[in-house]
């Protein structure tokens, strides 16, 4: 079964077609990467999936349910979560609080119960805290929970953002350049971590990434985007040999030289 499948998704900004009739399918449990030159429309495509932009045409289906027309928070509740290219944590809240916010869709108590603190609320808060601490451990930030998010080092912020997204309990996780700005060691760690997300938690992962080592190292499928259109799709080996991809990255003529 496909976790996510899109058909002919199009997004226009005025005369600019940012995403042009994009269609692809992600089977469950895969790590799928979307690559492409800067400005190819990758992040716009992400925003269409998460409902931040409404697509101008085409259909987006998640686990067989149509996402078009749903609001961002509804889509998150259905099981799609994301991180951001430029880290966007709730900077004036602590790390734990950030994760707790991510767990928001899974609270069941009513706000009035919180005022009188019913047993249900106390139990729910305790469970939430436990889960948040567990996630903090999982991403390797134990002991930093009470730090303000803005005070954490860069790499920790990236991890915290993922922990927050995991608190949504997603079935599909969209990672927008998770290794941007990291040194080679951190990048390798992040690659292993992404694999763990899939292997241990069973989350399907859709990745935007510029670092080809990461892309080729961990993805099982790759979709290549250029000027909003999908120009190729396949396994890392296929993509590496695809002349159209090489052309998009290196320019016309390059493909003949490389091959």
């Amino acid at each position: 079964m496909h976790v996510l499948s899109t058909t002919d998704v199009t997004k226009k900004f005025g005369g600019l077609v940012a995403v042009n009739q994009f269609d692809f399918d992600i089977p469950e449990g895969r790590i799928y990467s979307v690559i492409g030159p800067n400005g190819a429309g990758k992040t716009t495509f992400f925003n269409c999936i998460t409902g931040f932009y409404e697509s101008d045409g085409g259909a987006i289906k998640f686990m067989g349910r149509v996402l078009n027309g749903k609001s961002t928070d509804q889509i998150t509740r259905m099981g799609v979560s994301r991180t951001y290219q430029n880290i966007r944590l709730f900077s004036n809240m602590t790390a734990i609080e950030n994760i707790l916010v991510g767990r928001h869709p899974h609270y069941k108590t009513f706000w009035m119960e919180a005022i009188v603190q019913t047993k249900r609320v106390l139990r729910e808060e305790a469970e939430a805290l436990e889960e948040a601490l567990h996630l903090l451990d999982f991403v390797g930030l134990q002991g930093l929970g009470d730090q303000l998010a803005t005070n954490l080092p860069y790499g920790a912020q990236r991890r915290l953002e993922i922990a927050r997204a995991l608190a949504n309990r997603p079935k599909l996780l969209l990672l927008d350049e998770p290794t941007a700005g990291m040194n080679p060691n951190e990048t390798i760690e992040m690659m292993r971590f992404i694999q763990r997300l899939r292997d241990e938690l069973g989350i399907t992962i859709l990745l935007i990434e510029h670092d080809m080592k990461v892309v080729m190292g961990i993805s099982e499928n790759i979709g290549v985007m250029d000027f909003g259109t999908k120009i190729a799709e396949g396994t890392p080996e296929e993509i590496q040999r695809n002349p159209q991809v090489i052309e998009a990255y290196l320019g016309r003529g390059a493909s003949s030289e490389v091959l």
Partner: protein
Amino acid sequence: MTITKSIEIRDVIKFGLLAGVIVLSLSVIGFIDLLGTRELVAGMFTLGHIFMLAAPFGMAFVSAGKVSADEKNKALGYGFLIGVIAALPLVVLAILATSFDIRQFLPNVSPSLISLLTFGQGLTVGSLILVVVTGILGLLAAGLHTLPDRFQHPLITGLGWMLIAGTFSEILLGRVRAFFGRGVVKLIFAGKALNPIAALIIFVLAAGITYWLDTRAPKKEETVEDIKKLQKMTKIRIGLGILLLLVSPLILGTYLTEVANNVGLYVIMGLGLNIVVGFAGLLDLGFVAFFAIGAFAMGVLTSEGHLGLGLTFWTALPFSVLASTLAGVVLGIPVLGMRGDYLAIVTLGFGEIIRILALSDMLKPYIGGAQGILQIPKPSIMGFEFIQPESLFYIVLLGVLLAAFISWRLRDSRLGRQWMAMRDDEDVAEAMGINLVSTKLMAFASGAFFGGLAGAIFASKLTSIFPHSFNLIVSINVLSLIIVGGLGSLPGVVVGALILVGLPELLREFAEHRMLIYGALLIVMMLAKPEGFWPSEIIKRELHAHEEPEPVSSD
């Protein structure tokens, strides 16, 4: 506290002149002279002296912090220099004022001001005294800074208490007379001011107690044990505080209780606006609207005049609060998509609309137009009427405690986190599954709830309401007090209300300078302590987690 850049002689001159110019401008606008009429310690100094000397003292203190710790003599020398330099502009003013008729340009430069500046000793001797006094004060300030913390803290606290006791000596005198009789008054006070020995005793007592408390205070280590201890201490403190509040009308007397009631109403409003602005980050400049709606609803429902329905306070209260809460939702709907400045302007308009509606002819048959609503009964329970400020105090207190309790519980709940997430980044909050529409409406509704509560109590307390009580300045006051206290902080609201509502009430003779003090205070605040007087703390959840009881087992 050593700041990386140490200061040079040029900075010393700059600081000194800055202090001088501050005092000069305070003098020229007549502020110092006005304060000069308020004696702090009988026959020794007035509030005018304090303001005259505060700037050089403060500058010397601050600049001593910028000299490295091992150069004590340098710090002391700089302090002295700053003090001396700060006196120079004042000496120039004194010379000018005595040799020329400058009052036609600067009407506030009166002979009494010059006499105050020169300690009443004539131009030459007085100027010399002024220079020496400010110099010594600068020296003392710098000396104070070089002292280790365990001495510095008690000394500053003692000085602070002495100044507070002196400033409010008249009020203090009233209370002492009420409790201990005239004999004791004569011991402590001379005229309306403190007598020097009493002032000294207050200073020594305050400093001594602070020193003792400091030595006993636990070291700040974040072990589970310490947190438990702290939690226990906090509980005891809150209990004692509430107990003290319960008996405070007896201690405070009618006038101070009335002031406390006004502060309390502003605390309720502040807690409401704190949810909207502090938690949810929605800048609302029309908060007075909800206060007005609560008040008018209470008026219409309870008034015994021709406009009212004659209900009792307690029956009308839920409806009044409901009316303002609904108004909060109604205002919320059109502004859902707005942020920041746009939101501020729209809410500003909303506040004005409500006031103008209240004044309008259209609604005059219902809410009385400019004549307002009269004959609103005071609250009563089983025949007991809450007429005196002392008894109304308990109704206000009930409102404050309710508002504080709800704010506190909501802040630490999921809803509170939703608000704060929305404040930090709306888009991401939505991407975390938060429904922005309901979250925003909840913020507006909760804020309006407290605004309405304050309004309803206000109407019943005053027994008559007029549209002009609900103008923009109320919104500005409430917003300022939560900023001064610390955005998002609950104790900050109380501190802010005490400073911005209580203090001006107690210093009535300076009412004409109220806005000036307000503005200056806000500017200084934003520069020196942008997080407010009592900023909200970070909640330590990870550390707490290990000692919190196991989750209740589901059965």
